[in-house]
């Protein structure tokens, strides 16, 4: 009877454990930062750096796994935040007012909003020693966005561009097909507007998105996947080195955990908390809220191509039937404020002069009777499973039931939820309008060319009168006439209600009081160049 004796098995067993331990050890040394010097040790006391106050380190809560910082493909606000501080555009946004201010372009001029000449700043140094910034970099960046190989989703932003030229190292002339008063937003420090360096892109290939090289105040230092991202100060930044030497973004996904981590001092600043109760707790505990009010408008999209939503009266009845402000006050007073229009209040072309739909169930019933739906109808709305059926959804459902509209919810997971909305295969859906520039909202969501599934106009709204005024406003040079045209567009949209504004979202970056002047610009980006610590 042959069988191996016990010592033999014990040896094999220990060998197995050994493999497992070696597996753990080697991964620890092998992985980790994948470029540049590895960050300071975990307590955050950085090695003293040349120039600027030494040693200041800011720890910021990052709320999701990063998906890359290449301007051509960056998406989701938290990644755009990092890109905003690593890159620069010809223009950028003022943190307070959100207006366009000069960045890499010192100045610019245009007579007809069609030909734009930009005069570039001189002596600007690229990060990580990639030399001086010139107009060639600008041309390369824009051509890269348009190049189908990059397959950048933002190529469409340059549809209106005729040609780019660089007469000399420090001037860039851009000719448009049709005049566009908002063109400065297109070349701003956002998505396609962010300038990249040719040599860096070619050198790093598809890993460029994970170690971006720009001209902004902060350089990308290192990253531990799913746990930490580290930025360090760009010493030769053209506006001078930033006050804080290193920023460590630590990934904490759950909002409650983040609040607790902040209270426990593990982070100095939290990059977003969308949970009402957590915000109240932090506010009561005396933390700085660093709020940005009326950041972007959340709307309800009606698919006007299907019965009964094609009837304006039904949509108006829907608006009257629900006490939207009441819901916001009951569920998330801090996170939501009133909204009566598609554009956020901070935009210059925003107008108050639009029809309002106060909470009036009787009026809603009358409208439904006029439209021939006195005993109501049933509608299904898809919701994203990761945040489930929220309290506000359930309250809205109850209000609608009171007037006979039976709103059913169907929970689907994130990918399906987005697919349904992008393809327009919905009866009614929720959407947060991208608050970048008036054009981005009104043109994408109201213009017939952008009707789903080609564009974002999920409501399939097509009103020739509005379309004419919209295109005119785009081309109008005179700011007053432009504001008047946009006002009319908003008035028509708000009377026909393809979309109902639900509430205007507020953003909060709670942090300790020793973290100075953290200001969320209207794109809810924070320019860390302005932020300082005085402990």
């Amino acid at each position, binding site marked *: 009877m042959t069988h191996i004796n016990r010592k033999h098995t014990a040896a094999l067993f220990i060998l197995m454990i050994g493999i497992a331990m070696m597996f753990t050890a080697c991964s620890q040394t092998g992985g980790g930062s994948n470029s540049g010097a590895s960050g300071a040790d975990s307590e955050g006391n950085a090695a003293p750096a040349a120039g600027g106050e030494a040693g200041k380190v800011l720890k910021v809560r990052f709320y999701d796994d990063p998906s890359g910082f290449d301007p051509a493909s960056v998406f989701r606000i938290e990644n755009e935040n990092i890109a905003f501080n690593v890159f620069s555009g010809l223009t950028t946004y003022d943190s307070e007012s959100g207006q366009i201010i000069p960045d890499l372009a010192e100045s610019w001029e245009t007579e007809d909003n069609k030909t734009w000449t930009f005069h570039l700043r001189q002596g600007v140094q690229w990060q990580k020693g990639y030399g001086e910034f010139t107009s060639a970099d600008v041309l390369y960046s824009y051509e890269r966005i348009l190049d189908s190989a990059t397959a950048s989703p933002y190529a469409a932003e340059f549809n209106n561009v005729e040609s780019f030229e660089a007469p000399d190292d420090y001037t860039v002339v851009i000719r448009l097909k049709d005049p566009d008063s908002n063109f400065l937003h297109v070349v701003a420090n956002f998505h396609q507007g962010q300038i990249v360096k040719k040599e860096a892109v070619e050198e790093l290939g598809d890993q460029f998105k994970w170690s971006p090289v720009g001209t902004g105040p902060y350089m990308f230092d290192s990253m531990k996947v799913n746990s930490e991202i580290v930025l360090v100060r760009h010493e030769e930044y053209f506006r001078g080195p930033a006050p804080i030497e290193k920023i460590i973004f630590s990934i904490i996904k759950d909002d409650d955990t983040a609040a607790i981590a902040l209270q426990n001092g593990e982070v100095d600043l939290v990059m977003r908390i969308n949970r009402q109760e957590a915000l109240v707790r932090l506010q009561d505990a005396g933390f700085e809220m660093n709020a940005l009010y009326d950041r972007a408008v959340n709307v309800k999209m009606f698919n006007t191509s299907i019965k009964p939503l094609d009837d304006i009266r039904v949509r108006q009845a829907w608006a009257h039937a629900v006490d939207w402000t009441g819901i916001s006050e*009951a*569920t998330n007073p801090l996170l939501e404020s009133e909204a009566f229009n598609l554009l956020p209040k901070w935009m210059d072309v925003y107008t108050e002069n639009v029809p309002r739909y106060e909470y009036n169930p009787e009026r809603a019933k009358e409208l439904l009777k006029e439209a021939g739906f006195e005993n109501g109808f049933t509608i299904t709305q898809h919701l*994203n499973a*990761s945040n*489930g*059926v929220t*309290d506000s959804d359930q309250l809205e459902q109850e209000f609608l039931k009171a007037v006979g509209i039976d709103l059913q919810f*169907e929970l689907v997971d994130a*990918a399906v939820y987005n697919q349904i909305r992008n393809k327009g295969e919905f009866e009614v859906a929720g959407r947060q309008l991208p608050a970048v520039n008036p054009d981005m909202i009104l043109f994408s969501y109201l213009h017939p060319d952008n009707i789903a599934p080609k564009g974002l106009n999920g409501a399939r709204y097509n009103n020739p009168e509005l379309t004419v005024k919209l295109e005119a406003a785009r081309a109008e040079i005179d700011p007053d006439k432009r504001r008047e045209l946009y006002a009319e567009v908003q008035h028509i949209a708000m009377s026909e209600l393809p979309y109902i504004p639900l509430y205007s979202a507020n953003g909060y970056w709670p942090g300790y009081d020793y973290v100075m002047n953290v200001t969320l610009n209207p794109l809810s980006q924070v320019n860390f160049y302005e932020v300082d610590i005085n402990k």
Partner: protein
Amino acid sequence: MQNGMDGSITTSKGISLPRPKLRALQKILRNRQGLVAVLILLPMIAFAFLAPVLPLQDPLKSNITASLQPPSTDNLFGTDKLGRDIFSRTVSGMQTSMMVGIIVATITLCGGLLIGSVSGFFGGRMDRFIMGIVDIFLSFPSLLLAIGMVAIFGAGMLPVIIAISIADLPRAIRLQRSLVLSVKSGAFIDAARMVSAPTHWLLFRHIIPNTLAPMLVAASITAANAILTEASLSFLGLGITPPEPSLGNIIREGQMYLQEAWWISTLPGLVIFAIAISLHLLSDGIREVLDPRSKR
């Protein structure tokens, strides 16, 4: 009861009950654990299914002014964020959750009995084939299954039940297979084969009745776990869709207000605990009564 040692036939308290089922029930009630289980379970089941008749508030009616109120006389379990009465939501939630538990338990029981018996009784290649698949499913992350189900069928009762059943079925199959192997070695199987009893006779008259008791015990434990898993699934947004209450999604919503309103998720949690405890006790009771071998 004399066990026939001295030939007398009447029980000490009267005539021995002819039907086996009645006698088993009588034994369960006499067994301490079984009694406690039935005492807890019965009122709950009655309560859950009588809910529409009972003087309870409408579980879906919200009242914004009374948001996040602590337990009081008119709201036994307090109110949630929208001011809805948690007690009535728990009662109707119990109905849904018990439904999930019972259906999952039945599916795993029947699936386990059928496939386990086939695998255990026939053995050979069939057995290796079934066990191969069971291993693959066991090594399959059950969460991927759950998310897949929801993505295909959308959230709600059906995908939750399917996801949990598929995750628990392999365990039930393995248990049944081992039970069949041990029963199959009993001499009474040879006695039946001695008269050329056909396979279905061996399976349904001899083998399955003798594996029923342990499988029932396992089923009641699966039911308790299913209710709990539904709660964790609703954490990922995959459970029963609100506003329709289930014990799982009430606890999930309550968890967000744990510091402000601890009662929202704690009290329904106790209800789940009571249901699970009684199911476990019932399973111990069944095991002791129907499976004399286990009595020490």
